[in-house]
């Protein structure tokens, strides 16, 4: 029974979500709030479950000082009060500070030194084509970093270098854009593959009839 009911429910919900392609309507809003509602329900569950594991159980087993991060965490909710909003900044500062510390400390060896090391190669091990490619990639890298240097005017030879950097970045962003078209389309493809199967493909006929009726009704008025 659930092999028929569940696909029909999911098919109906999918078509309700897709109805926004036709126009704004209450079916889309219902599908949208269902996603938000389920998401909120799961987030509430995982938050309480994680808090129990990392805070409540250690607190009850003797680590009394964990009451301090709990108070700071609860202070985050003062963000909804205009009068006590300033209290939320303490916890935000702690979270931001720790995150920034971890990011900055590891940024140097991984993102700067690691990437500069990637520029270095053994020329004897490269074929002529690989060598040309490596030179192009190095010029693209250096010119991109030069583009973000704003303490010197982008004129003359430096302006030429930053222009190469801009073109390199256009190639990079164009690559991302071209790939993102596929990445975004695959969601529709998956849902279409699901809707094409029986019994949910019958809902496609219902959806088309619904839209045809709505078009006819709106034209009449």
């Amino acid at each position, binding site marked *: 029974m659930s092999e028929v009911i569940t696909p029909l429910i999911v098919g109906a919900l999918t078509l309700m979500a897709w109805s926004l*392609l036709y126009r704004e309507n209450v079916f889309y809003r219902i599908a949208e709030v269902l996603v938000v509602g389920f998401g909120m329900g*799961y*987030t509430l569950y*995982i*938050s309480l*479950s*994680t808090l129990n*594991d*990392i805070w409540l*159980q250690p607190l009850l087993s003797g680590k009394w000082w964990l009451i301090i991060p709990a108070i700071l965490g609860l202070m985050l909710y003062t963000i909804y009060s205009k009068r006590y909003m300033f209290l939320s900044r303490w916890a935000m500062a702690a*979270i931001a500070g*720790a*995150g920034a510390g*971890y*990011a900055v400390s*590891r*940024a140097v*060896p*991984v*993102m700067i030194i*690691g*990437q500069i*090391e*990637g520029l270095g190669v053994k020329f004897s091990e490269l074929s002529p084509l690989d060598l040309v490619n490596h030179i192009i*990639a190095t010029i693209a890298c250096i010119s991109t970093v030069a583009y973000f240097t704003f303490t010197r005017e982008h004129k003359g030879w430096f302006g030429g270098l930053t222009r190469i950097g801009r073109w390199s970045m256009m190639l*990079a962003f164009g*690559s*991302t*854009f*071209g*790939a*993102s*078209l*596929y*990445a975004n*389309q*695959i*969601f*529709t*493809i*998956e849902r*279409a*593959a699901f*809707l*094409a199967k029986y019994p949910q493909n019958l809902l496609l006929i219902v959806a088309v009839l619904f839209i045809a009726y709505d078009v006819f009704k709106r034209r009449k008025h």
Partner: protein
Amino acid sequence: MINLNLETLSKYDRQIIFLVVLVLTFLPAFYPIGLPLPQYFLTNKVYNAINSLNPGDLVLISFDFSPGEWVELGIAMKDIMQHLFIKHARLVIIAFSPNGPALANKVLSEIDLKGAVYGKDYVVLGYIPGDEAGMAAFVSNPKMFTVDYYGNPIANMPIMNAFNTISDFKMYIFACYTWVDPWLRQFSGKVGMIIGVLSADIVPQVMPYINSGQMYSLIRGSRGAAEYEQLMGIKGEATAFMDAASLTVSLGVVLTIVANYGYLKKRLGGQR
């Protein structure tokens, strides 16, 4: 009679494009074409790396995406984890996204575990909050958990005695939908091999890490999943999507050319 002049077409261009996209998306679902799928060398690299694992090798896996990204990342993770269970690797599964543990649970319920025993061959430790701070905390102490995602105490689980530090893991496979910098910052140089299961649009931004060797390889979303299924010799979900991907993405190419053809013709002809 519908007047199909240019004015009408330009007035309803959005609806026409939507309709064309829908038709091209549904057509292969009803009438599969079965176009050949060329392989990408990085997918082969991932496959060979997992194939070279010995039974009992420890692999760390993190699910760091949301349910909406299931198509791009979840299917690929399913294929990879199926391969890992076939190789009888031992898996420690964590998540830096709140939805990660539930998605890991979904994957585990949909694949053949090949007789793997929970607690001995694999464990789902659960969600680690704090984003990069959480990653740093796990890297410095992988035994930070006291219970797993299901609430079971993990102290006596055999798999938890198989590692003490992060470098005990042979491989780290993570699936994320955003910039990979936090993962690479925290795990690079700590684990033997880092493999990313990434959305197709993140791949261009990750190539420097592949080139410098900081990241071993990657799977590029559902396209990579389809290639992986081909290597495993199975006809999975992702393979079925490739026909529609060919048609719809071709429309993008056509639209780009068509949109600029008239514009460039006018401009190069001297008219504005």
